[in-house]
Structure formats: C-alpha cells, structure tokens
C-alpha cells in the first residue's frame, strides 16, 4: 500500500460571495501530523469545510487531490468514502438515530454491499474505542449528538474518526471547550491512529493540544493563506509572542478579518 497524499494547490474559497481563502497551498502525506494555527477569521475552518464539501462554501479556484482523485469533482459522501474525514466544530444532532446505527451505516457505506461488517465485530470494536475515550457504554444507544455536552460531542467526533479509519482527518478546533482530561482522551485517540496510512491536520488557536499530539509541521495562516511554516517550535514561539508579534515579524497588516 502506497502512502496516501493530500495536495491542496492555490485554493480560493468564498462564502456567500465573500472571498475568504485566498491562495492556500498545503501538501500532506500519510504519517504526518500538521497543525494549522492562526487568529480568528483567517479562514482555517473555511479550508476544512471546503475540502469536505459543505454546500455553503464555494471553491472559486484551485485544486485539491487525494492521491489521484480530484476532491472537487466528488460529492461529500464520495470524498468521505475516498478517505477524507472532518471532525467538526459544531456537529449536527440527529434525533431518532442511535450513534451505533449511524456508525454502522457509515462503515458499511465505505465497505460496500456484500462486505458489511459483522455485527459482533462492530460492537466489540466500538466498545474498545469508547473505552479508550472514556465514553460511557450508553453513548452507543443515544441519539447522535442529541443532548450531548460540548465535550461529549468532541469525543464523539474522535470516536467516529477511530471507527472510520480515514486516510486524512481534519480536526477543526477539536480542543475548544474541552477540559484537560477530555483533551488527553482526545489526544490518546488521535495518537492511536498514527501510522503511515493516516495523515492529520489539526486546526487550533492554542498550543496546548500540541503538547499532547506532537505535530511534524506547524503552519500559520493569516488573511486567507499560509504565511509561515515551521516545526513544533513555531507553535511555542507563537504562544510566547502572540499573533501580533508574528504579524510584525512578517510585516503583515490586516486587510480584513472575517467571520469563520
């Protein structure tokens, strides 16, 4: 099996006619963990949503390829089945559908008809992953995200990630609203996925999560594009100097900020 590759080239994205991402470039390989940092409103979440295919986000130019497949030619579900995963900042609630049914449907969707996961194997796997995330067994039968606290929703996103085993995952502010214990559980889950068949892009404001999931690359995004790339030390520098320090160093003035 060849190592998967995700190539994003000169991506431009608009939301409701307003240009937000302006020339975003990033190459990722399986086995790599990338962190994408930057102040509010610079387009980090917009990159994530556009790659996954949210209907509100319009790709005005640029390409994104997962191996040799053009993501922008594919529907949302096709991108997922090709190996993309987005842990969402605000996951939807789906009443009346149990977490277990939802996950089994998703897994079987990827495996295809005639190759469905045996029920017992599914239950065992789910039990094991839920234990790792310190999730109560009752989560399996609860309706998808309905009545979940913020932290429970985030853990549920990571549970899905672990069950679906994508080639690339984007974690969109998975650390927001998490206490330190939940943060550790989430990190444990993500770290358990590490292999050369899995690449991960972590979107975050804070360096804190990166103490637990060590990135290979850190990218700083401002005004719709990556302005600086480095190793883990870049996140530490940012933590010390703040975004204003970074702006001054790079000679960047705010041309606009937008709601993500």
């Amino acid at each position, binding site marked *: 099996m060849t190592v998967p590759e995700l190539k994003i080239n000169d991506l431009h994205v608009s939301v409701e006619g307003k240009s937000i991402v302006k020339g975003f470039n990033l190459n990722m390989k399986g086995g790599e963990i990338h962190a994408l940092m930057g102040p509010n409103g610079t387009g980090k979440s917009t990159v994530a949503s556009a790659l996954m295919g*949210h209907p509100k986000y319009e790709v005005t130019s640029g390409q994104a390829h997962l191996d040799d497949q053009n993501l922008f030619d594919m529907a949302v579900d096709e991108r*997922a089945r090709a190996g993309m*995963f987005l842990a969402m900042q605000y996951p939807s609630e789906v009443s009346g559908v149990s977490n277990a049914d939802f996950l089994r449907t998703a897994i079987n969707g990827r495996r295809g008809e005639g190759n469905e996961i045996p029920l017992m194997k599914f239950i065992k796997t789910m039990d094991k992953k839920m234990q790792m995330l310190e999730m109560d067994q009752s989560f399996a039968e609860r309706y998808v995200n309905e009545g979940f606290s913020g932290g429970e929703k985030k853990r549920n996103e990571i549970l899905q990630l672990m069950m679906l085993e994508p080639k690339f995952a984007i974690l969109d502010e998975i650390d927001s609203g998490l206490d330190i214990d939940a943060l550790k559980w989430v990190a444990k889950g993500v770290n358990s996925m590490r292999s050369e068949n899995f690449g991960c892009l972590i979107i975050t404001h804070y360096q804190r999560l990166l103490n637990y999931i060590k990135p290979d690359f850190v990218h700083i995004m401002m005004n719709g594009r990556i302005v600086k790339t480095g190793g883990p030390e870049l996140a530490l520098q940012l933590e010390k100097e703040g975004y204003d320090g970074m702006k001054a160093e790079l000679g960047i003035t705010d041309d606009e900020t937008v709601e993500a």
Partner: protein
Amino acid sequence: MSMQLKNLPFDAEELTKFAEERKEPKWFSDTRLKGLSLAEELPLPKPEKTRIADWNFTNFNYQIGSSAVNQLSELPDSIQNLMKNGEEAGNVLIHVNSSAVYSRLSKELTDQGVIYTDLATAIREHGDLLANYYFKTTPIDKHQLTALNAALVNGGTFLYIPKNVVIEQPIQAVYYQDAPSSGLVAHTVVVAEQNSSVTFVESYLSDNSVGEGAANLVNEVIVGENAQVKYGAVDEFTDQIVTYVSRQAEVAKDGRIQWALGQMNDGNTLSENATNLEGDGAAADIKAVSIGSGSQKQNFDNYVRHVGKATQSQLLVRAAQKDASNSIFNARTKIEHGASGADGEQTQRVLMLSDEARGDANPILLIDEYDVIAGHAASVGRVDPDQLYYLMSRGIKQELAEKLIVEGFLAPIVDLLPIEGVRKQLTTLIERKVG
C-alpha cells in the same frame, strides 16, 4: 343554505333487518335509525383546506363478516406478525372483515371484572353498561360521518376496566379487512374507572383485495378519576380506502391519557383526535406521526380542551410528506374560562420530501383564562442541510442519509408503543413509506 336530504345507498328497512339479524336490543337499533335520519340531514364535516366532498364515505358493503378461528395460525401473516410472541399472544381481540374471529383475555383479568369483547357481544351481554358510554364523548350528531357510524356500525371493541384495577400487560385489538368493496364501521369504547390503569393498542390493516372501500371509526375513551390510559394506534389502510377516524377522550380529575398514534394509511384520511380535560389536574400527552405518500390527501385535527384547573397537555405532531401528497395539520388548544393554572403546549413539525407535496401546519390557541401557560411551535420545512451534510461527511449516500433523518424524525412514537409486534409494524411501515 337549504336542507337537502341525501340519497344514501341504504334505508331504514335494510338497517332494521341488519339489526334483527344481529339480535340487537331496541336501544341499539333505535340508535341506528336515529343515525340514519341524522346522516340524511347533517352536512359532512368541513376540515380546513381539505376538500372532502368527493370522497366516498357512503358506497361500500357493510354487511360483511368472517368466521371464528381456533388458532392464530389460521389467520393471515400480517395479523400474526402483530402478535407479540406468536402463539403466546397476550390479551388480544382480532377482527376480520368487522367480525371478531379470535379473542383471548387472561383469567386473572376476567376474575378482576375486566370486560374485553367485540361490540356485538358487548351489546348483547353488557348492553346497560355500554349504553352509559356509547356516543357520550363524541356526539352522534356532530356531523354526517358520526351519524353514519351510528347507523352502519358493524364492528368495534368494548374494554371496561373496573375501579382500582391496574393492568400491566397491554391489551391489543387488531382489525383486518380483505372483503372486496367492504367498509369497516367500527365503534370502540374504552372505559377506565377510578384509579385504574391500562394500555390499549389497536392496529388497522387491509389487503389490496378490498379495492375501493371505506373505514369509519369512532373511538371513545373515558378516563375516570385518577385513572391512566395509554392508547396506541397504528392505522394502515390501503390506498383506495377512504378513512374517517375519530379518537376522543374525556378525562376526569387527576386522570391521564397518553395517545401514541401512527397514522400511516395510504388512502385519503380525515382524522379527528380530541381530548377533553374535564377534571382538575387532568393531563394529556398526545403524540402522532404520519407520512403522506402517492397522491393521498389527509387532514389531521388534534384538539385539546382544558376545562379543569391545573390541567396539562402536551401535543407533538410529526409528519413527512412525499410524492404529491397533501396533508393539513391543525393543532387546537383551547383553555376555557376557569381553567386556571392550565398548561397547554403544542408542537407540529412537517418535513417536506418532494416539490409536489403539500403540507400545512396550523397552530391554534384559544385562551379564555388569565392564569395559564400555553405555547405553540409549528414548522414546515425540508430536511436540514446541515444534518444531511454531517451524515454524508461520514460516507453515507445522500438517499440513505435522508432516509435515516426522516426515520429518526418519526421515531418518538415508535418507542411509545408497548407491543413489540406493533412497534415493528410501525417501523416497517415508516421504512416502506419513506423508502
């Protein structure tokens, strides 16, 4: 408007003969004749925004029947599937083509004075008791369709729970029609006396062999002081059957009724559900789901009337509209003067699954008292695009994702039905109608 006598396809002579053959007492055959003359005079109901003038409420064969069976295995599979554990069925009464063909009530309940029998038997054996309740919550002269029910009644159920009797096991009724061009005209009376408690679940089914037919159902529930009734129903008539169904309850002091209705007919349907909270502290919980499909037209009126003090009601209606179906949903909460401390909440949500479908949700609050809480919410919309995106982002195809969302949306009623066979009936129906 000038009064015009309608040309009904039956007359007093025919009805009298029908009553004689059934050995009905005078009070009952008199009610038939009264129903006939009222049906000739009274207008059809006028449901808001649904035109029913050309629906066939009157042309069908009501003189039908079926003979009793000794074993469940002699009955069609669709009936057997509804029984909880096949041969070990609980307390059940099965009607085929309006006739009771199989019944079973545990000795324990009989010994406690519980009566559970078909209407024809109840008229003969418990006539005096039944007469106290027959057409008491729903007036015979409400409109032409209630009058027709009185005139032509050919089936139904009587369930009587004496004072202080608490029944844990659900009591089940099943109606199945397969006679060509037949009409089921059924009248059900459920009486729960003071401090009693019961769960009653009815299923209505028909086979395509009926072709064009009709169902006229008037179901009355009397909830005594501090009594509790859980009333579940799944309606599943085929597409050429026109249905009028009235389910009405009267609730005394501190009594409680819970309705769980799966209204899944494939044909045109006019449904009137009403709860009268007469006594202080009476409460009602109404949950109803439906799916419109094909070109069927449906009108659902859900009505709660608060009379007693500190009465409570919660009404939840959920529906999905497919194809070129057309459904109107009225939720009416009325709080009468003097019903201080009343609390009435209603929510109606309609999911539109096709451009040609139509669905209207009309919330109506009528309040004649100051010291009350009342609220309503009504929405008609499409499947939430964010939910759809979320499910698809996990690799689920759009069609399947929509199906999951709609089935989940309709699930709250399924969970309330206490009989596994009936839960399965409703789940399978939802899957079939949505799929």
